[in-house]
C-alpha cells in the first residue's frame, strides 16, 4: 500500500515485516527515528522481538553477533561515530560469517563534529567483509532491506550487510513508499535458518584462533562468499521484481546513458538530483547520462566497465575522501575502467552535508568536459 512516510519510518516498517527476533541498537543522529519506531512497535506488541537497549554501539553489534550465533535473525542500525565505534566488531562479524543486516543512515565523521550527510562512515569500512547497498530513495531503502536479508542469510553467502541511505536527506524526508504487507514479505523472505548455531545439543566452537597455517584460507573464504553474493543478489533482486514489480537484479543502473559522451557515476540520493540535472542538460543538447551504483560491496567492476564502454568522459561524485589518495568510488571506478580509454575524473562533493543543487551537477560536467577533475568541488576558498 502506498503511503507518504518518513524514510526512517519506512525502514522501521519494513524491518518489522522482516521479523527480526533480536534488535540491539544505540541511538545516534540521524538513525534515531528508526530505532525509536522499532521500540514503539515492540511496546505495542506489533513486533515480537527482544529489544536490547545497549550502552554503546560497540555492544549493539556485539550483542547482535551473540544473538545471531545463537540462531536468531537480528537487526541493528547506526551511523557515523557509532559505526566507527563498531569498527572492530564489524570485521569480526564478517569473519565469523554472521548474516546481520544493519541500516546505515550515512553521516560524516568527526573532526570537526558534524551530524550531516556524506558517505565516509560506511565507505571507510569497505574492507570489513560487509556487503554494502546504497539507496537512492525511500522506496529503494525499504526494498533493499528485504533483499539484504535474503542475500545475507543464503548459505552460499553468510555475510553481513550495510543497507545505506543518506542521513537526513532520506532518513528525515517524507516520500511515497509502497510498503508490502506482512504476508507478502513472508512470501519473499522465509524464516531464518542458521547454517549452524550455538546449541547444547550439538556443541561447537565458534571464533577460534587461527595460526598462519589456516588464517589466510578463512579470509579467502570471505572473499569467495562476497563474490558468490553477486549471483545471490541478482537472483534475490529478480525475484523481488517478479513479486513486487520493482526489479533490483542490477548492481548498477544507467540513466540516459545510451548515447552519452559524459557519464556521471554516483551512489545514494545524489542520483536523484543528478537525474534532474541530466534532464536539463539533455534539453540543452548535452549528451550526459548517469550510472548509479547500488552495490559498493561486492564492487561491480565488470558491470561498470560494460555500462560505460561507450562514453569518453566519466565524472565520479564521491561523498567521501581517502586523504592523500582520492574518493573511494572514483579510485575503484578508475580501476574498473583501466585500459578503456575513457578519461575518468573524481570529484569530492557534499562532505558534511553541503548541499548539492542541479547547477552543481552541471558545473561538475563542465569541469569534466574541460579535463579538470580529481578535486574537491565547491570549496569556499575565502575560508581556507
Amino acid at each position, binding site marked *: 500500500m502506498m503511503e507518504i512516510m518518513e524514510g526512517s519510518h519506512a525502514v522501521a516498517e519494513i524491518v518489522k515485516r522482516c521479523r527480526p527476533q533480536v534488535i540491539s541498537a544505540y541511538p545516534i543522529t540521524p538513525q534515531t527515528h528508526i530505532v525509536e519506531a522499532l521500540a514503539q512497535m515492540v511496546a505495542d506488541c506489533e513486533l515480537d522481538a527482544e529489544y536490547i537497549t545497549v550502552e554503546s554501539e560497540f555492544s549493539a553489534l556485539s*550483542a547482535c553477533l*551473540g544473538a545471531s550465533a545463537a540462531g536468531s535473525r537480528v537487526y541493528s542500525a547506526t551511523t557515523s561515530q557509532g559505526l566507527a565505534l563498531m569498527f572492530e566488531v564489524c570485521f569480526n562479524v564478517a569473519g*565469523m560469517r554472521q548474516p546481520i543486516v544493519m541500516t546505515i543512515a550515512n553521516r560524516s565523521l568527526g573532526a570537526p563534529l558534524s551530524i550531516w550527510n556524506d558517505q565516509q562512515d560506511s565507505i571507510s569500512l569497505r574492507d570489513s567483509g560487509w556487503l554494502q547497498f546504497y539507496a537512492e530513495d525511500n522506496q529503494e531503502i525499504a526494498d533493499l532491506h528485504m533483499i539484504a536479508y535474503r542475500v545475507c542469510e543464503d548459505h552460499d553467502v553468510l555475510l553481513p550487510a550495510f543497507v545505506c541511505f543518506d542521513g537526513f536527506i532520506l532518513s528525515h524526508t517524507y516520500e511515497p513508499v509502497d510498503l508490502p504487507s506482512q504476508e507478502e514479505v513472508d512470501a519473499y523472505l522465509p524464516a531464518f535458518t542458521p547454517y549452524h548455531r550455538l546449541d547444547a545439543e550439538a556443541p561447537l566452537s565458534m571464533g577460534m584462533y587461527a595460526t598462519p597455517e589456516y588464517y589466510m584460507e578463512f579470509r579467502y573464504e570471505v572473499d569467495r562468499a562476497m563474490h558468490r553474493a553477486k549471483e545471490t543478489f541478482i537472483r534475490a533482486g529478480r525475484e523481488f521484481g517478479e513479486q513486487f514489480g520493482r526489479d533490483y537484479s542490477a548492481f548498477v543502473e544507467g540513466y540516459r546513458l545510451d548515447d552519452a559522451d559524459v557519464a556521471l557515476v554516483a551512489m545514494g540520493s545524489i542520483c536523484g538530483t543528478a537525474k534532474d540535472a541530466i534532464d536539463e542538460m539533455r534539453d540543452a543538447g548535452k549528451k550526459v547520462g548517469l550510472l548509479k551504483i547500488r552495490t559498493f560491496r561486492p564492487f561491480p567492476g565488470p558491470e561498470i566497465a560494460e555500462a560505460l564502454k561507450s562514453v569518453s568522459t566519466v565524472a565520479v561524485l564521491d561523498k567521501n575522501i581517502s586523504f592523500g589518495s582520492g574518493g573511494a568510488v572514483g579510485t575503484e571506478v578508475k580501476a574498473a575502467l583501466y585500459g578503456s580509454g575513457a578519461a575518468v575524473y573524481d570529484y569530492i562533493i557534499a562532505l558534511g552535508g553541503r548541499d548539492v543543487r542541479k547547477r552543481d551537477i552541471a558545473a561538475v560536467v563542465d569541469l569534466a568536459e574541460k579535463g579538470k577533475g580529481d578535486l574537491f568541488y565547491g570549496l569556499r576558498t575565502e575560508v581556507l
Partner: protein
Amino acid sequence: MAKVEQEHELFTAGHRACGGCGPALAARLLLKATGKNVIIAASTGCMEVFSTPYPETAWGVPWIHSLFENVAAVASGIEASLKKQGRSEKVVCIAGDGATFDIGVLCISGAFERGHDITYVCYDNEAYMNTGIQRSGATPYGASTTTTPTGACAPGGNPLPKKDMPAILAAHGAPYVATASIAYPNDFVKKVRRAINTPGPCYIQVHTPCCTGWGFESGETLAMAKLAIETGLWVNYEMVNGVVEKAKKVRRKPVEEYLSRQKRFRHLFRPARQDDEIAKIQAIADANAERFGIDIKVKEPAE
C-alpha cells in the same frame, strides 16, 4: 574435590596451556559445575588461545569467542536470543582479568545494568599474561610486571592497588557476586552452580595463579593459591544483593610467606630487603581481614 573429580570431563586434555596453569584448572572446574546445558562466551586471552587453536578445541560445550572486550555484550545477545527461542541453556562468560577489569568494563557494566540472566566468571591471574605479563587493573600492589618493572626510579614494582571489581558489580545490583580460588575447587564449583541458578547477572572472580607470569614452579600453583588465602591477600567471599554474607576465615600467615615464593615480588627481598614495601602489602592484607572479618580468633573453631 573427590566428588568433583568423579564427574565427566567437558574441558578436555590436550590443550596448549603451560604445565601448572591455574586458568586451565578453573576452566575444567567451571564445566564440571555447569554441566552440558551451557553456552560459554569467552574473551580473547590466554585461555581462549590455549584451548581453541583451530582446528582443535578443548571445549565439549558450545563455545564462542568474538573479541577481547565484548564478551559480556556477546553474552547479552545470546541470552536474548535463547529467551526469544524459549531455550534453557545457561549463558556463562569466561574472561581474564585484563578483559574484565580494564578493557571490557563498558560492556560488563551495560550487561549487568540491563540485568541479563548471565554468569560472568573472571579468571584472575593478576596481569596480561597472554601478551607477556603486563600490568592490569587486577595486578596487586608491589608486583613486578613487564610494564611495571622495578628499576632505580621504581624500586617497588606496580605502584597501584588492585581494583575492587566485585564491589563495582555488586553496585550494579548483581544479585550474586563471589570470589573463589582454584585452591578450593568444591567451593568454586558450588559458587558457579549458585550463580547460574540465580536469575540475573552474577559475577564470580576466581583466583588462578600463573606460574609463568608470577614466577614459581609449576607444581606449586595450588599451594600459591592457598597461600594467597592464608595470608589474607585473597579473600573468598559471597555477596548476596550487595551484602557480604560469607567470607572464608583463616589463621593468617604473614604476607612474606606468599611474596617471597614468587619472582614478581623478588625485588622486595633482593638485593636489599624493602621492609617499608612489605609492610604496605601486609597492611593491605590486614585491611582485607578487617573488612571481611576473616581472622579466626583464639578458641574460635575453624570453618
